[in-house]
């Protein structure tokens, strides 16, 4: 593991870099450091943004200088093992696979020489780490998809993909938070809203959390949709076992 670097990122930002590869170990370190920074109560920090490789810390230089912040972070990094970091949680994402919501399920199955059922089984068997959110509000960058269902992007991207669509692009899987154009192979759709500006917590997912997809019937999809609009839906979230 390479050493942590404290890099200047403008006069109001510090990039705390943990590595230059995509790995669950680095992600876990970033998550732990983020929690430690939030608990530390260091003055002048306005927000932190976890990414694959780093934690970007936004701060106010009239409250704390780059030099002083680096010192505080070095101390914090030294005592990181003393800070209790709760295990990450797993959130269940119900998905209606195939049909009109997953028009490319057959394509993915054919490309990988398996049946659509096997694709669903493979997709729902994994636990996907949310490395980071970015690109657009609420979009999770997920890791952990089985290469057995990897499929190249569409040659002609769709002009509009509905929010909640679950897709595959190369070796990645993802969920569209809101309607947008895109070239992912669509295999299903979740009734959950990854982004809702009107909700108290507008973005559902968090970096460092895990996702588990669950295949649901049309009847269940519609029931969840109704519960969401009635505000009675209970999100299924549990702690990941160590």
């Amino acid at each position, binding site marked *: 593991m390479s050493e942590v670097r404290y890099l200047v990122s403008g006069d109001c930002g510090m990039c705390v870099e943990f590595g230059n590869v995509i790995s669950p170990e680095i992600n876990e370190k970033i998550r732990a450091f983020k929690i430690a920074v939030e608990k530390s109560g260091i003055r002048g920090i306005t927000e932190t943004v976890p990414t694959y*490789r780093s934690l970007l810390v936004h701060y106010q230089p009239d409250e704390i200088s780059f030099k002083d912040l680096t010192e505080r972070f070095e101390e914090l990094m030294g005592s990181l093992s003393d800070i209790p970091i709760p295990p990450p949680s797993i959130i269940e994402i119900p998905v209606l696979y195939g049909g009109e919501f997953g028009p490319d399920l057959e394509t993915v199955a054919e490309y990988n020489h398996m049946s659509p059922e096997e694709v669903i089984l493979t997709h729902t068997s994994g636990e996907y780490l949310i490395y980071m959110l970015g690109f657009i*509000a609420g979009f999770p960058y997920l890791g952990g998809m089985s290469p057995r269902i990897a499929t190249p992007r569409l040659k002609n991207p769709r002009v509009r993909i509905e929010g909640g669509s679950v897709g595959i692009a190369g070796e990645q899987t993802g969920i569209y938070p809101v309607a947008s154009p895109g070239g992912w192979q669509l295999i299903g759709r979740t009734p959950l809203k990854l982004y809702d500006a009107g909700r108290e917590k507008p973005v559902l997912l968090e970096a460092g959390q895990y996702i588990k997809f669950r295949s649901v019937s049309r009847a269940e999809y519609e029931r969840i949709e109704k519960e969401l609009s009635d505000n009675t839906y209970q999100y299924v979230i549990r702690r990941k076992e160590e």
Partner: protein
Amino acid sequence: MGVTFINGGFLTTVQDMGRTGYQESGMPVSGVMDRRSAALANILVGNSEDEAVLEITLMGPVMEFDEDSVIAVTGGNLLPKINGKDFPMYQAVPVHRGDCLSFGGPAAGSRAYVAFAGGLDIPVVLGSKSTDLKSKIGGLDGRKIGGGDSIGFARPGITPVNIKRRKMEPEDFSAEEKIIRVVMGPQDDCFTEKGIDTFLTSVYTFTNESDRMGCRLQGMEIEHKNGGDIITDGIVFGAVQIPSHGQPIIMMADHQTTGGYTKIAAVISVDLPLVAQARPGQRVKFRRISIDEAQELYVEEKRRMKELKEEFDRAPDSCEDPEAVILSVLGCEAGRYQNPAGRYRAVIDGKEYILDLREEHEDI
């Protein structure tokens, strides 16, 4: 209602200092492009620096006042006019019901800011009034202002103290070639020595591919060691991103929170207004300074703004029209002044009275 727009101009939006705290969820900060001009407009009319203002781009809107107000126009000179006559910039000016504010066109800079005393009656969405055009939230339903739109005032009829004193020298954005200071990093180690040298010594031109998300520049290609792609990293306002084509893109107010291109440097906060006001065809030379220098400049600008605010808000030592002071401070118009605290000497019928309205006496 405060103001009604006859037309919205090229791109007029409601912005404050932005929506902080949601970048970890992938939500851009948005907010004004030129923070200094917007803060000064607010200070001039007695608002807090981060109150929402109108950000006006190149071709301004036409708006009619439905109520009296006090406004200040700052930033780029887009030739503001009131009822067709030139309107002074960088100055608090009372406007009246029926007055029409319009803009003649861009004379210098590209963005003007209009602040209204007491602020704008715009709902706060996730902690900010800023319009986020991409997520379609904030401001007027997350969109730009058009003809027929109206915006109310948060505190109609409010007047800042010392109106005559509330003016300052306008910032000049007309330079065709700008020196923009940067701090290097976080991926300056992804460039060859030659690449860094090119970046710091050659002249770059602003292209017309510039918007609230970023400004694309054109010039000598900046050489990477191993291409411009990196594993995705966070982005700050002002980051100078160099993709593999070797041409700089300066990330602006609506920038994505993360991105997968190398960032050679970032424009320092006090020079970001120059980028926000730049126009296609204008040229820039980057100059590197240390992080310590950049942060000293930041602190210095904050301090100057605070002093300016105190100077504007400081109550006069004496008043030539004591009756007006007494009426406005104590009488039927009480509450009209935002900051009446101070020590007043009033001479009425040859007799001297002291009105002590300083902080500890505020319950008078």
